[in-house]
């Protein structure tokens, strides 16, 4: 007997037309639901996220089907991904059945679903259903029993989970009923390829054929209605993420990570800057709220949230969604709260982990821009002072600009104003220029370059703050003023390459300054020195004394610039043995100083830098290595104020390397 089954068995082909009509109606309800969301999204400002179509589509397909973003967090992620693949398989199977029954058979008179293929088909679908059911149970237990911190239970969770359970279970029941009445009697050898159905069939074993037929019919229609209900529910429940989150994989920015819109300060008609209400945000910012699944991954990783500050990136996204729907003219900043806005370190942990491609950081920066540019507000008086200092002396400390190059006195460094040729321009930054601790880093870097025969130029007193901290605090005007001066200056010299020791300068010069016309290659010294080593221009000691360390990934190197391996390679070459912190690489935990927070005092909650030093100490390594002046400053502070003195030490990568330089190449 051929291995196949009769589609519409017991239902009859009379069901086809009402079935399609109902399905169309359900899709209509779904479309109507999203249609109603359109005006909410369209309250936002224009933004083109439909360019470079191929790249976007490719990324979307890859992200959806690989589940790569969801899978990054195993807890929850495994359940979701496996459920997704199981449910997707069922969906594909249902589609095949549909094409077979309503197209191939009547139009072509071929039966694909037969023979060996049918056996495989049946087995795969049954297994997929079982997997989906199992994973759904896992998700159910996770949400309602294990209840991980940060995960809230809302109405949608009951609806969605119950609906999915019901669909899967009724699916098996229909199969069981059908098999009890047909396969088990006519072709028991085939039943083995439907293990789920076989199991379900046991329930119907004692039923009379008449009852069985009626039960099957009822179950079939019930299952069908549930599926229609599922489609109808998509726009009105969390299920919307099936479409919105997928769409976000298409809509996510293609610009380099960390790109911020450069405000056109020449536009004399502009009277509104930053976001005070929903309508000042882009439509994508509002759409993001619909793509959010409240998975709380962003909140779980937010250093501000973890240290009891009033910021949750998830909450900010949801507040935007709520206001867009209910109170679009309302005071957005008041709702989010200024304390929450200023607490952000722009560390990008939220955005990096978000499975829905939501752009948290720039929303916060837009709101900060409003506070700063429209109201002249600061997170504290100390920031007002530092800002004034940058305006006058080009550094946040307020130290005389003329002494900016003093750290290099007596070193083999060329001042660019001398006009001499150099291999690289070292953009020193404020901390390495003025702060004693970080000056040691600058000097170490120069020694490394000297050893590798690299001729280094600096701008000396002509250099100014790159503008990063004030830009992240929203002060686009001051940022552009200082940036323009730096750019004009750098372009006036023949510079082939710029190297920084500060990841913030690196991001700003290398990415943000492009918008303002600087197009010279910019590199952080981590990759520069790594290349010097691999190219054998810099030779380290043959058998360096081994040491154990843990490494802190600066947010602006790791998450922003994907520089994760190179510094580790250098340290390994220098004889280091790494003991990683739990939160490392893309999952690194901020030092507290990003987003302009380096200028501000941390008044709310506990101290982020102390938390991070604790994590470093927990590795048991006696040495914490970083490669960012802000991180170094915060960790030195954290070691002192957190009572870790005598225990762990913090040093910069350059300081480690300079002690292990061998002979010349």
């Amino acid at each position: 007997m051929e291995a196949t089954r009769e589609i519409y068995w017991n239902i009859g082909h009379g069901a086809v037309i009402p079935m399609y009509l109902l399905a169309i109606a359900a899709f209509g309800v779904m479309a109507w639901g999203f249609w109603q969301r359109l005006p909410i999204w369209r309250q936002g400002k224009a933004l083109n996220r439909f360019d470079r179509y191929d790249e976007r589509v490719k990324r979307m397909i890859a992200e959806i089907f690989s589940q790569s973003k969801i899978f990054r967090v195993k807890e929850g992620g495994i359940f979701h991904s496996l459920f997704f693949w199981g449910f997707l398989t069922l969906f594909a199977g249902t589609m095949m059945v549909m094409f077979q029954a309503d197209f191939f058979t009547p139009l072509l008179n071929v039966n694909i679903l037969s023979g060996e293929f049918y056996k495989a088909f049946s087995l795969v679908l049954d297994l997929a259903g079982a997997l989906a059911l199992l994973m759904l149970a896992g998700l159910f237990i996770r949400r309602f029993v294990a209840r991980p911190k940060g995960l809230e239970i809302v109405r949608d969770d009951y609806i969605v989970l119950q609906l999915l359970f019901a669909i899967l279970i009724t699916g098996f029941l229909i199969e069981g009923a059908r098999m009890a009445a047909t396969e088990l009697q006519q072709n028991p050898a085939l039943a083995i390829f439907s293990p789920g159905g076989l199991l379900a069939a046991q329930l119907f074993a004692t039923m009379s054929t008449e009852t069985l037929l009626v039960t099957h019919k009822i179950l079939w229609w019930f299952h069908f209605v549930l599926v229609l209900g599922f489609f109808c529910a998509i726009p009105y429940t969390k299920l919307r993420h099936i479409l919105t989150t997928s769409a976000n994989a298409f809509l996510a920015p293609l610009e380099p990570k960390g790109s911020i819109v450069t405000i056109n300060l020449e536009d004399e008609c502009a009277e509104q800057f930053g976001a005070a209400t929903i309508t000042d945000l882009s439509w994508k910012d509002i759409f993001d709220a619909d793509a959010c699944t409240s998975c709380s991954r962003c909140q779980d990783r937010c250093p501000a949230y973890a240290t009891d500050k009033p910021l949750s990136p998830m909450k900010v996204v949801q507040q935007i969604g709520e206001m867009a729907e209910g109170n679009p003219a309302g005071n957005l900043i008041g709702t989010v709260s200024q304390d929450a806005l200023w607490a952000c370190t722009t560390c990008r942990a939220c955005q990096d982990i978000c499975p829905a491609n939501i752009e948290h950081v720039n929303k916060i920066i837009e709101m900060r821009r409003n506070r700063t540019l429209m109201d002249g507000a600061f997170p504290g008086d100390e920031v007002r002072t530092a800002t004034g200092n940058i305006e006058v002396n080009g550094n946040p400390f307020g130290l005389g600009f003329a002494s900016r190059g003093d750290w290099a006195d007596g070193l083999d460094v060329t001042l660019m104003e001398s006009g001499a040729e150099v291999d690289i321009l070292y953009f020193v930054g404020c901390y390495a220029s003025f702060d004693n601790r970080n000056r040691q880093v600058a000097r170490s870097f120069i020694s490394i370059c000297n050893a590798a025969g690299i001729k280094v130029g600096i701008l000396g007193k002509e250099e100014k703050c790159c503008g990063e901290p004030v830009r992240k605090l929203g002060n686009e005007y001051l940022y552009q003023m200082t940036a323009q001066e730096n750019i004009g200056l750098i372009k006036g010299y023949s510079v082939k390459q710029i190297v920084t020791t500060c990841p913030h300068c690196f991001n700003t010069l290398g990415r943000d300054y492009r918008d303002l016309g600087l197009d010279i290659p910019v590199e952080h010294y981590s990759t520069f020195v790594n290349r010097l080593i691999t190219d054998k221009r810099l030779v380290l000691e043959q058998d360096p004394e081994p040491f154990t360390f843990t490494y802190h990934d600066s947010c602006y190197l790791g998450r922003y610039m994907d520089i994760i391996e190179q510094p580790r390679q250098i340290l390994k070459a220098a004889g280091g043995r790494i003991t990683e912190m739990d939160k490392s690489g893309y999952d690194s935990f901020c030092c507290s100083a990003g987003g302009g927070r380096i200028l501000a005092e941390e008044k709310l909650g506990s101290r982020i830098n102390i938390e991070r030093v604790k994590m470093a100490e927990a590795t048991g390594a006696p040495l914490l290595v970083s490669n960012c002046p802000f991180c170094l400053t915060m960790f030195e502070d954290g070691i002192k104020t957190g009572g870790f003195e005598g225990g762990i030490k913090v040093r910069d990568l350059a300081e480690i390397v300079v002690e292990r330089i061998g002979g010349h190449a």
Partner: protein
Amino acid sequence: MKLLVCIKQVPDLESRFKPNTEGSWFNEADLAWRMNEYDEYAVEQAVQLREQLGDSAELTVLSIGPDRVVEAIKKTLAMGADNAVHIQDPAAATKDPWQIASIIAAYAKDKGFDLIFTGMQSQDRGSAQVGVTIAELLGYSCATTLVGFAFDNGTVTAKRELEGGIKGVVKLKTPALVTCQLGLNIPRYPTLPNIMKAKRKEITALAVADLLTVEPLARTASFHSPAKKGGGIVLEGDVDNLVDQLIGILKDKTAVLR
């Protein structure tokens, strides 16, 4: 109502000061410039009054000096002044307070300003004379060192800061001049729309020669670093000895133990 605020651009006090070749003032190379702090309080108070009075008021900002002072003028315009007068004088630093006050008085005498605001002193020269002298030359009533200001119906109620945190409350009738002290207000940070608007505001340039008619009354014989007050002394050794040595230094070099 016509308001005037007089501002001075001064070097940032973090700068290293070196005497100029004449030894009469500092060498301007390598100095960063900013608005005199006390003048910022004056500007803020003037702008607040300008806002209180609405469009019936006009606030003019005045500064004397070389071209670089336009930066400070622009900041004032961005903070909310309506228009500006730049009295161009590359040699302003060589003029004594009497001459500076005379220049401003010569400009203001026929303009009918109801209220003039100045800082209580400049951070670099620190003579605390110009404001009061302008008032004397114009015959205006004058109160100095304000930490409180209110204006109502032609009368200024001012709180002067006295020693020990005590305040003296006075009332002045316009036309009047007030000099402003730290603590009077928190100067606003200019907003971007106001910075943009300021670019379109008028700055009238006047030549100092047309306004200056008086000779200086005092001259700077020398500009120099303070004699090292024992700078960089390192005391080491027995603690009791150290205590005596330190008390000796405190008596010698500071006014604290007198």
